[in-house]
């Protein structure tokens, strides 16, 4: 039996690949998107009648290419369209246009080009590679749909008018450009992990999408440069920043493994220390830890890899008490060298509290310039509570509550504060 569900599954898995191939063939993002959407619309009817083809992705790409030729021919009165159709024809591919391995990598580098604004990079990546609709992206980032539509139109116009190229950057630019791609993926993941506002604590779809794209980048990194060395876990990194790409994927997997345990039955936030570790996803943890080990063998540490290693240490411990806090503190020290900043210092202070006690940690936290960041106040509140300085702790919880718009986080902070204000209730 074939139904819309099959098409939907292929759509999620293959949309980005199909758009990437079509952008290469057509040299035009809007045309490529239209052609691929046409092809999927055709698939809904055709596959229901005839069953899915042996290679659904190839079928979609070939159909989209033929649709594009038809459309260009119809509009061939315009000379440039005619030339475009002729070029497509001249390619004369075999019956099925096979995906070229690095097409998606090219497209992601185009979407994450530094000449585009950060918000536009995120939106384009989700739209073109993730196949999310404009409405879905708008909902995920809590902006009105017309605003998101305009953002996408502007970004695509800039790619076209400014001539942002569709290719993998040359070697000298790769470290910077890959870093920009990873930053976009991490932004998508974090928005999914802790929605900056709204009722639901996680937007699982965004996390899943970020992980899928992370896998794509890691796969394409190791595939596109296959000529440079042997594949397999023991080979050297092929891209200068490939260890960081692998580190980011590991970090996302290890964080995602705790997703179910992060919320209680009522949807309230549960912190790491209080989580039921039986609810952690062991499959994701095993995959993430294997990637961390691969990074350790490369011995080219960077911020994502170190954060992944910290999460791997947490995942190793059967309980908070059994956590190797000394190792976590050492990793935070290393992170402060690679990516110094007040937020890292705040997280380091949390580990320090476990190693050297809450007083030492509080002294560190009070030195940080993070007055607007709710987590800083929440951490302070917890340290003050452990030092039995109740009135100050209550004030710190209030400061934290005033600084977050996430409903689940607010509820958690209120409960902690109320527990402190009237213990026993």
């Amino acid at each position, binding site marked *: 039996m074939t139904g819309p569900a099959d098409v939907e599954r292929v759509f999620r898995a293959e949309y980005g690949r199909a758009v990437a191939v079509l952008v290469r063939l057509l040299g035009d993002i809007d045309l490529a998107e239209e052609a691929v959407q046409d092809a999927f619309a055709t698939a809904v009817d055709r596959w229901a009648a005839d069953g899915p083809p042996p290679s659904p992705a190839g079928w979609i790409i070939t159909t989209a290419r033929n649709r594009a030729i038809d459309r260009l021919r119809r509009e061939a009165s315009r000379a440039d369209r005619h030339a475009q159709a002729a070029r497509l024809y001249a390619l004369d591919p075999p019956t099925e246009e096979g995906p070229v391995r690095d097409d998606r990598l090219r497209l992601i580098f185009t979407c994450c080009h530094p*000449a585009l604004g950060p918000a536009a990079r995120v939106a384009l990546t989700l739209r073109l590679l993730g196949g999310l609709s404009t409405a879905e992206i708008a909902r995920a980032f809590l902006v009105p749909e017309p605003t998101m539509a305009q953002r996408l139109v502007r970004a695509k116009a800039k790619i076209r008018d400014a001539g942002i*190229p569709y290719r993998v950057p040359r070697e000298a630019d790769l470290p910077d450009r890959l870093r920009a791609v990873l930053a976009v993926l991490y932004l998508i993941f974090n928005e999914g992990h802790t929605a900056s506002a709204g009722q639901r604590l996680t937007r699982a779809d965004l996390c899943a999408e970020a992980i899928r794209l992370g896998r794509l980048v890691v796969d394409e990194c190791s595939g596109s440069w296959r000529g440079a060395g042997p594949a397999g876990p023991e080979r050297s990194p092929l891209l200068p920043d490939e260890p960081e790409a692998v580190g980011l994927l590991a970090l996302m997997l290890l964080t995602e493994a705790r997703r179910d345990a992060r919320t209680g039955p009522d949807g309230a936030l549960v912190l790491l220390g209080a989580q039921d570790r039986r609810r952690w996803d062991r499959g994701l943890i095993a995959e993430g830890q294997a990637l961390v080990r691969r990074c350790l063998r490369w011995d080219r540490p960077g911020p994502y890899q170190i954060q992944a290693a910290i999460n791997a240490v947490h995942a190793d411990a059967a309980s908070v008490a059994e956590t190797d806090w000394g190792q976590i503190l050492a990793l935070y020290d290393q992170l402060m060298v690679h990516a110094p900043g007040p937020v890292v210092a705040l997280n380091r202070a949390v580990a320090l509290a476990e190693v050297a006690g809450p007083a030492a940690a509080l002294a560190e936290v009070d030195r940080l310039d993070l007055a607007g960041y709710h987590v800083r106040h929440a951490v302070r509140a917890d340290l003050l509570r452990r030092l039995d300085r109740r009135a100050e702790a209550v004030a710190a919880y209030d400061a934290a509550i005033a600084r977050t718009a996430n409903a689940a986080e607010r509820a958690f902070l209120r409960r902690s504060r109320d527990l402190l204000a009237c213990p026993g209730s």
Partner: protein
Amino acid sequence: MKQYLISMYQPAGAATPDPEFLAGVMRDVAAIGRELREAGCWVFGNGLHAPETATVLRAEGDDVLVTDGPFAEGKEYLGGVTIITAPDLDAALDWGRRYALATTLPIEVRPFQGGA
């Protein structure tokens, strides 16, 4: 090939830089111009006189009003332009980066309409 406008922006009211420094900048900028010509990417380029030398024309019905001074007073003014051809934005940004390093000024790279 596309054409790009590379604009150099200068801070308004800043002290005139040290002549030796300025001579170094001029030398570096000239060298980039030579390289652009050798690469076949040069279209046009030159520095502009100070904004006070500008004259602004505004249509007023059938008349045209002539006034002294720059069109818009700002913290920065256009100090010079270069027009180049380049296959894509990355190539244009490479040249822009060279100008930014040579002049230490903010550089804007902007595509002209037309070309592919």
